[in-house]
């Protein structure tokens, strides 16, 4: 296997994450408080304003998947009675907990002082934290984000969320951290979020260029790492996104494609939009199936699960709690099927894509329910053919490489044949 080629930004990110896990490993001895929370609807700036350390179980699970330990953790959870059909993020997390809570970097993870459950459309999140509450016996705070069934958030929705933040979430954080809520500090953090968000959007929009200087799925999931997890609002995140933007803009200016594990993909034959999370256990193998065919992903919905910024939303330091509410409501997991269709159709048009692919995840009903209807509706509206494959998040048993490869190859050939047909 050749050496993996890496962008400079990836190195920066690796260092950030390393530092964060070091902090977590030393949290107890340094008296730092720890809050477990989820990616969609994360309130990172608020947590950082209380100086508590966020832990994101989904990120731990996906990292375990990438590092090859998730299979063992899932079996461990199944031994404890969690069925085969349960979300594999949950089982991976429970298995990790039962195996001594050693995090993905090999360092121990601290126990939570608080479970902050932001509910943004995924019902499993509730069940997950019920299990963790049982295991850790710690306080839990529930922040309910109304589902965007009608496609818009009403003033009442917003007021309802702000009231929860004031009356439930902030008091819980005050109790855990022993600090008073400091709105000025929150504003300062939100200001830094805004800058990072501007840079992130510039990065993703660079994929409108031909060739695309980035892969908005396989690279994109790395790019959103800091802003979706423990770093949004931090100085280091702002610096990371500035560096990333410069890197991507530089590649765009030189007409270069993204850097894959086997080198740059400058010659791009297919431009795709992808819906759904990636498979993490065979991430490299999965990616290879794309770049071997010279396929680049120009936009993806999964990179919007922890926040949707390309529609214009930015965190607003002048309305700190209202803006957090707006942010949560707009996360991709909280969007209705018509909104998701709208987003994919828009991406196909704006990013001049040749096709779109749905990776349907076996154990994630939150994502996969309705995906076939999305497929048909997007095809109907845009006339662009879609492809449908199935895999899983972190259960290595559900990745059938030969099947997926067969399907992807067929799909790419179908795009070719249709293209040839049109030009006849």
């Amino acid at each position: 296997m050749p050496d993996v080629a890496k962008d400079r930004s990836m190195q920066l990110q690796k260092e950030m994450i390393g530092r964060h896990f070091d902090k977590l490993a030393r949290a107890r001895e340094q008296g730092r408080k720890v809050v477990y929370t989820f990616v969609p609807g994360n309130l990172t700036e608020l947590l950082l304003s209380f100086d508590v350390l966020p832990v994101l179980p989904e990120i731990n699970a996906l990292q375990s998947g990438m590092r090859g330990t998730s299979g063992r953790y899932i079996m461990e959870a199944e031994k404890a009675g969690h069925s085969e059909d349960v979300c594999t993020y949950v089982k991976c997390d429970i298995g990790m907990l039962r195996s001594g809570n050693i995090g993905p970097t090999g360092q121990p993870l601290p126990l939570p002082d608080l479970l902050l459950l932001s509910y943004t459309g995924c019902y499993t999140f509730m069940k997950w934290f019920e299990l963790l509450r049982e295991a850790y016996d710690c306080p839990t705070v529930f922040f309910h984000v109304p589902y965007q069934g009608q496609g818009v958030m009403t003033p009442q929705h917003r007021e309802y969320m702000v009231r929860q933040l004031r009356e439930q979430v902030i008091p819980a954080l005050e109790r855990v951290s022993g600090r008073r809520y400091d709105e000025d500090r929150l504003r300062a953090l939100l200001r830094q979020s805004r800058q990072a968000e501007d840079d992130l959007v510039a990065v993703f929009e660079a994929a409108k260029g031909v060739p695309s200087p980035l892969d908005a799925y396989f690279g994109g999931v790395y790019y959103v790492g800091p802003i979706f997890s423990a770093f949004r609002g931090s100085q280091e995140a702002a610096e990371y996104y500035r560096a990333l933007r410069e890197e991507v803009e530089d590649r765009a200016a030189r007409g270069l494609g993204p850097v894959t594990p086997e080198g740059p993909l400058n010659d791009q034959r297919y431009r795709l939009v992808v819906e759904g999370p990636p498979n993490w256990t065979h991430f490299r193998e999965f990616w290879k199936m794309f770049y071997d065919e010279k396929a680049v992903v120009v936009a993806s919905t999964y990179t919007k699960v922890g926040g949707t910024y390309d529609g214009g939303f930015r965190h607003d330091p002048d309305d700190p709690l209202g803006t957090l509410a707006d942010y949560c409501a707009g996360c991709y997991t909280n969007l209705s099927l018509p909104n998701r269709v709208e987003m994919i159709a828009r991406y196909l048009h704006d990013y001049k894509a040749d096709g779109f692919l749905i990776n349907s995840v076996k154990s994630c009903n939150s994502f996969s329910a309705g995906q076939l209807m999305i497929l048909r509706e997007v095809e109907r509206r845009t006339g662009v053919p879609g492809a449908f494959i199935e895999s899983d998040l972190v259960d290595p048993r559900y990745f059938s490489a030969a099947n997926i490869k067969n399907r992807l190859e067929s799909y790419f050939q179908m795009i070719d044949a249709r293209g040839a047909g049109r030009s006849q």
Partner: protein
Amino acid sequence: MSTAVAKVPCVVGVDLGSTTSKAVVLDDEGRVLGRGITNSRSSYDRAVELARVEAFVSARFQVLRRNVAHAAGTEALARLLAAFRTEQYLVQLGQLRVALDREVACRVRAEAKEAVSGAVAYTVGRMCEEEEKRFEEPSPEERSDFFRDAANSAYSRIAEEVAAQRGLSFDLLLGLFDKCIIQVENAPLELGFVQHIDAALARCGAGPELREGVEAAVATEFVVRSTVGTGYGRARLPFPKEQIRSEILCHGLGAHAMFPATRTVLDIGGQDTKAIQVDEKGIVTSFQMNDRCAAGCGRYLGYIADEMNLGLHELGPLAEKGRRPVKINSTCTVFAGAELRERLSLGDKREDILAGLHRAIMLRAMSLLARSGGIQNEFTFTGGVARNRAAVRALRELVEEHYGARTINISPESIFTGALGAALFAKRMVAS
């Protein structure tokens, strides 16, 4: 008499399926010259070679047919073809005998060697005699196209009888066959037209018109201008990437060539079920395939046939006799096997259980068809399972129930659809 060498430009499509490998040869005008099929066995390389040999044998018969059908009559031609098949079969039996002798010599205990050797010789001898007789029968019983299956069925029957008569272990005799049949399948066999046509001519006592035609067919040189491969084993083919096509595209194009008004294609192969929508040019517009699990595909039927101790080709005819189909699990092959045994023990009739199993397969297919966008106008059913009449009947019923009246096309050559599509892609490559 000297025969001028006729050069026939052609293209070839090969489809390396999980169960069978197929090849189709097309002439310059896109007409089918020949088709060949063999079981895929453990070696795709051998399978594709044999399928090609078979396709060219059939292409030479096609040349023969075009040249002399009028003069010699179609009956004489059919008889020559049957004689040719008999010669091929006898050659393979000869190979089987050699392999069996070798196996007996090195594996059977010294004291039993003679008895086992005699039993094997007798069994294969009887198989040869039966084959000779079969040729003489006006309408011989249907049997599998594959040497493995046909020989297995005859060998088991005779060996069982011999074992009982001579006090030998039937399992031992069967075990020897299982070991040797793989060797025969994987050994290079000369099964081509040139090797056996003379013996076939002698066997059927062909007249001079036919002999002349044969000489011309032997002298015909097929000039392969392009080959395209598809199917699960396509990565094994020593072709550049542009000569490899996905079987989804090939089935779409193949079905369109057979039935140009087709808009929906259902292909049920060994391990895949594919629901495909095509446009008016045969280009695929969307498709869905089974995921994670291959219950309901051809292999499901293979497993059930084994469970019931039947040949795969016997399943459909038996199921067709079913009057009250039993409901059977369609989501797990192994569970279906368990249900089948349970049903048998409860006294359900074999044909009713089999009718239920065929319906179960089609229920899975209906769900994929729905996912791909349903059944539009004309609908074509392809793949090995389309040869099974009970499966076709179940499909017709379900399509009618769910979509109302639809034209359902099934070609007798449906198993070659993928290879035909591949050959058409090869033809396009030549054209461009």
